[in-house]
């Protein structure tokens, strides 16, 4: 039997899956949707994410380590489940691939204005394919290495402490034009990925502090997000934040080193590791669902089809504005699924428990 995934790695995986390119626009989003001191919204959303993880934990406890699919398929007919599976595949695969595309469009905007994004995306797809065929254990190993390669980045915020001023935060709370529900969807969208914990249940050792690692990983991501938002509010001020498309990018641009200019270009490229893990985990979940539908298909063929299909679809999202709009709807659907699936599972587990008793 394969080695089980250690909680240390789960912690790092959670951070790598959750954090991504959404962080670049997050301070503006908090300001735009929540108004003054919008950074506090990160705490609220982080709490909602923890509640969602708590639902996963209930499934874990009640299901005694059984996989999501085993629980569902032992009570519900496949004819009912397959349309649901198809919908989940649609939402998760599109979210994953569009997050990848968003990163590539941003990269193209910064460094390769004349190169067609589909060429850059092709490289990304190659990485996805080669990592995905190696299986979840190796994906987790890769995420650990990528975590170390990027773990130093949050400390760059220390560089801005000299220019940080508390008065820029203002004493007002959530004032200005606000749209909190939309804002919560946006912020939760940038924290998505934690649902992987639900699918990792069969791959972790029973009675290990697995969910503690999931929560800690998620909290660590929230902490990094919070720090970036506070620094952005204290550095730029609320009014200026509203006019910056990618405030984190401007924060990075402020860093100057004697031997290299435009340091932000270099920093931005390190985000490829985070985006890669975010997308790959989405595709891995999709692979699990597809494996349930096409039971006899070769895994490598399935992976190839996922990568190819999402590559083709992602080419239709050719501007960042269009992509953001698509992502907004997908985030809403994804978040709904994240709550709906564990609730359905808990109901099914209760029914199964009663049936066992009778």
């Amino acid at each position, binding site marked *: 039997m394969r*080695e089980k995934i*250690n909680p*240390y*790695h789960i912690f790092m995986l959670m951070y790598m899956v959750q954090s991504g390119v959404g962080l670049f626009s997050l301070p503006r989003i908090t300001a735009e949707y929540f108004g003054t001191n919008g950074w506090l919204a990160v705490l609220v959303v982080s709490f909602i994410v923890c509640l969602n993880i708590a639902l996963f934990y209930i499934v874990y406890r009640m299901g005694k380590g059984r996989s999501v699919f085993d629980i569902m398929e032992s009570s519900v007919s496949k004819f009912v489940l397959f349309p649901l599976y198809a919908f989940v595949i649609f939402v998760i695969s599109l979210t994953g691939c569009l997050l990848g595309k968003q990163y590539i469009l941003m*990269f193209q905007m910064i*460094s*390769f204005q004349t190169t067609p994004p589909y060429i*850059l995306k092709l*490289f990304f797809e*190659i*990485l996805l394919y*080669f*990592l995905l065929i*190696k299986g979840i254990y*190796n994906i*987790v*190993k*890769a995420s*650990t*290495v*990528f975590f*170390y*390669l990027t773990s130093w980045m949050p400390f760059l915020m220390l560089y801005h402490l000299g220019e940080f001023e508390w008065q820029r935060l203002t004493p007002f709370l959530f004032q200005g034009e606000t749209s909190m529900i939309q804002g919560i969807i946006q912020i939760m969208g940038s924290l998505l990925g934690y649902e992987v914990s639900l699918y990792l249940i069969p791959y972790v050792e029973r009675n290990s502090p697995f969910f503690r690692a999931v929560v800690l990983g998620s909290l660590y991501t929230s902490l990094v997000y919070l720090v970036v938002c506070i620094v952005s509010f204290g550095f730029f001020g609320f009014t200026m934040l509203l006019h910056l498309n990618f405030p984190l990018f401007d924060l990075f641009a402020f860093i100057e080193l*004697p*031997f*290299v*200019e*435009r*340091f932000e*270009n*270099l920093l931005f*490229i*390190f985000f*490829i*590791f985070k985006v*890669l893990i975010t997308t790959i985990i989405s595709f891995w979940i999709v692979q699990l669902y597809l494996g349930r539908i096409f039971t006899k298909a070769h895994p490598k063929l399935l992976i190839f089809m996922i990568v190819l299909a999402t590559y083709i679809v992602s080419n239709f999202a050719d501007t960042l504005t269009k992509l953001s709009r698509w992502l907004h709807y997908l985030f809403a659907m994804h978040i709904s699924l994240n709550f709906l699936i564990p609730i359905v599972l808990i109901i099914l587990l209760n029914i199964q428990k009663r049936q066992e008793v009778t």
Partner: protein
Amino acid sequence: MNFFRSSGKNRFNEVQKAFEKCEDIVYRTFPQLDITLIYFDHLVEKLDLDRDVIRPLNQVTKNDLQGLFKQSQFERTQNAAETIESILNGKVAVFHGDDTYVVNAYGPASRAVVESETESVITGPHDAFTENLNTNLALIRRRVKSSKLKTIKLSVGEITKTSVYICYIEGIANDGLVQELIKRVKNIETDGIFEGNMFVQFIDEHPHSVFPQFITSERTDVIASKLIAGKIAGLVEGSPSAFTAPTNFFEFFSSPDDYYQRWMLGTALRLLRFIAFIITITFTAFYVSVTTFHYEMIPQALLLNLAESRSKVPFPPLYEALLMELTIELLREAGARLPSKIGQTIGIVGGIVIGQAAVQAGLTSNILIIAVASSAIASFVIPSYIMSASIRLIRFGLIVLAGNFGNWGLMFGIALIVIHLCGLTNLGTSYLTPVAPMNANDWKDTFVRFPFSLLVKRPSQVKTPNKRRMK
């Protein structure tokens, strides 16, 4: 040919036939005793032959022969095949009537124990393995005086019949890993094996990977230290390179010097090697990427010098870098093949004449020379020559990617390397241990070298039943 249970006369004929046209074989007869000896003169030690065989046979009478053959040096063989194999292994075959005996007098000429040229250290022992298996075993036993040091002899190669010894310390090495290694050695199908580094390629799990998956060393102290850490060592006949398993990627960056110097120095040196690894793999590629696609990243103070230097070069940075990298590799290969004194001359010619002339002729910019030279020097900081060579090869791929796709290509290459490394295993254990899977305790002797008082546990990768050292 039926080699099983043949009569004495037939057996002699079979052996004689097997060694037909082998003019280096020696037949020596003792007609008064009805005895014939067959052996290879150059495989036996003259003194042993004289003491154990010739002198006793000269002194004995025909009636006392059976008593002589009862002495322990005479081993009876059962068939012609066994006799032939014994002769090939440096034993003397003694034919008498229906009986055949062999006497071990193996002692071919071999070089003395000298310092390893590829793994020299500043402080520490200088003895290294030789091509003689017995000498190598003796060098290990001299360092590990324990009856728990077990050795298993195996034979590899259909034609060469190369002896391979698997060594491990009972109670410390993992039995499952020992059995797995033995199984792999037994499954090797080849005509012949001549070197330890060649041998390990037959037991690799990923033969198509550019990375070496078993660490090999000519140093006896290295192998002894790995044995007591719970690893399994292998010695190959005719090779001064021993190998150990299980191996991880980071092990290739440690050197015995780290342990023979103060721990702070050891730590600094080890960190330096990892920095050297990053420089080797990325420096030239980064130069190519920046000068091709990301000029905006160059500081203004440097930009003018670089632009001036680059303005004389008629090629794109990619060709310029590949040309210089290729020149460096040519110089290295030429230096490796030539005697050390001429090799130094090549170094001077290459380093000064070609470098200087290339800049003056406008073939390359002087900043590129610095980048290429720095990454070449950094590659030699890596203690394992095999790993260093692999890394240099990968560098070419990264340069090409950086030359075509800038920083994007460079990061793509690095991600691909990480993904590839994640998939590698050695004897079923992860090649990236102790980073992934992570073991914080092992980090004390991976990227840094903690004081010995804190290195109390054996590495997790060896899966030892005896986790604490000194037990």
